[in-house]
């Protein structure tokens, strides 16, 4: 029920005193209320949308930063895995290689 989906703001306007706008959920467009984020967003920003309301601006810098950490961790794992495979190959073949 507390589902929140990230969407990009494509248009902002006023509806009888209420800040509203159009957002794009990866191709699907919808009108939402922007009153709770109006002071901090502009067209092009990403927001988390819940039951037709933008409830939070997506901090793109933070999103990018944490993702980089995860990617580095994953790459590190891959390097460790490659090293393990190389070690195992060496043990099987013995010193001096398999030639």
């Amino acid at each position, binding site marked *: *029920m*507390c*589902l*929140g*989906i*990230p969407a*990009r703001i494509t248009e902002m306007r006023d509806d*009888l*005193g*209420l800040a509203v706008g159009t957002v794009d*959920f*990866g191709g699907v467009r919808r009108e*939402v*209320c922007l*009153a*709770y*984020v*109006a*002071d901090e967003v502009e067209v092009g920003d*990403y927001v*988390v949308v*819940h*039951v*037709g*309301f933008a*409830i*939070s601006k*997506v*901090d*793109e810098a*933070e*999103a990018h930063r*944490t*993702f980089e950490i*995860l*990617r580095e*961790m*994953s790459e590190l*794992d891959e390097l460790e895995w490659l090293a393990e495979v190389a070690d195992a190959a060496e043990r099987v073949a013995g010193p001096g290689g398999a030639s």
Partner: protein
Amino acid sequence: MRYLTEYRDPQLARTLVDRILETATRRWTLMEVCGGQTHTIVKQGIHEVLADAVEMIHGPGCPVCVTPLEQIDRALHLAERPDVIFTSFGDMLRVPGSECDLLHIKARGGEVRVVYSPLDAVEIARANPDKEVVFFAVGFETTAPANAMAVWRARELGVTNFSVLVSHVTVPPAMVAILEDPACRVQAFLAAGHVCTIMGWDEYEPLVKRYRVPIIVTGFEPLDILEGIWMSVKQLEEGRHELENQYVRAVRRGGNRPAQELVGRVFRIVDRAWRGIGTIPGSGLGLRPELAAFDAEVKFGLASIRAEEPAECRAGEVLRGQLKPYDCPAFGTLCTPENPLGAPMVSSEGACAAYYNFGRLHAGSEAVT
């Protein structure tokens, strides 16, 4: 989709799973608070792949599941009235009341409409001035600002044929109730990320200190959940208990101030009964007395509609994390998503429905050897 699909990357998920399994020297007991997190965990089998490191207890964070029977019966009563258009989020339509559900009322000719946003209900009221339009205002802190705005908007536009049937609940008092229970086994919490987008995390810091329990504000995608679990396990292994924020892309310490302000103007804190759990002091929101004109309970005199919950449904134990869905004798036999006995089998975020829909029908691989 940006900020969504990349958080489902299987390779990064594998990395986090490996880290968690490497870090844990014993099996820790964690609770994810929110039903949306339960859905992700059970769908992806996260609880199974991590079974050696953590036991996931599924918390009470599904508003559909905890809305008391009495409020459902009141909704049914209103929806049956010929002068009422009853509006609701879609997932409330199949929650069983004492005798039937909203879908049955609709089939019998009652005017029940599903809305995407609470503001849609206000628009329906403006378009139908000869009808009374009632919106079923359920939810946690995440949904409260939307529902508050609907009431505020109706007041500003002078829409007098609009009212709300309120059944709002809040997370921290429920976490206290869980922690105060002598049977509590929870060693760390994944706090509900979207609740915290509104409320921030100030409310959780006293809990961390008083109960010496790590609380990690966590998002909803598989990588979010895995990272939240990893942060919990690291704290537990290092003997720390701190508040940490995994969901940094959406949650700030202070939350969403404009949303908190309007919620405070429209609602006040009240005691609230949770289905299957009972009354938790100060755990709900009710309309402020000065907005009584928008309170469906006052407008339609609903106080006399009372209901007792049936004894055979053990949903309360599931919601408190004391019973796994597959250990309930009614699970998958008497109680299925097509014919639910209790609310956790109705909502896709309910623990019972999640276990049923994703084929987790028995202890199976979750058991530790």
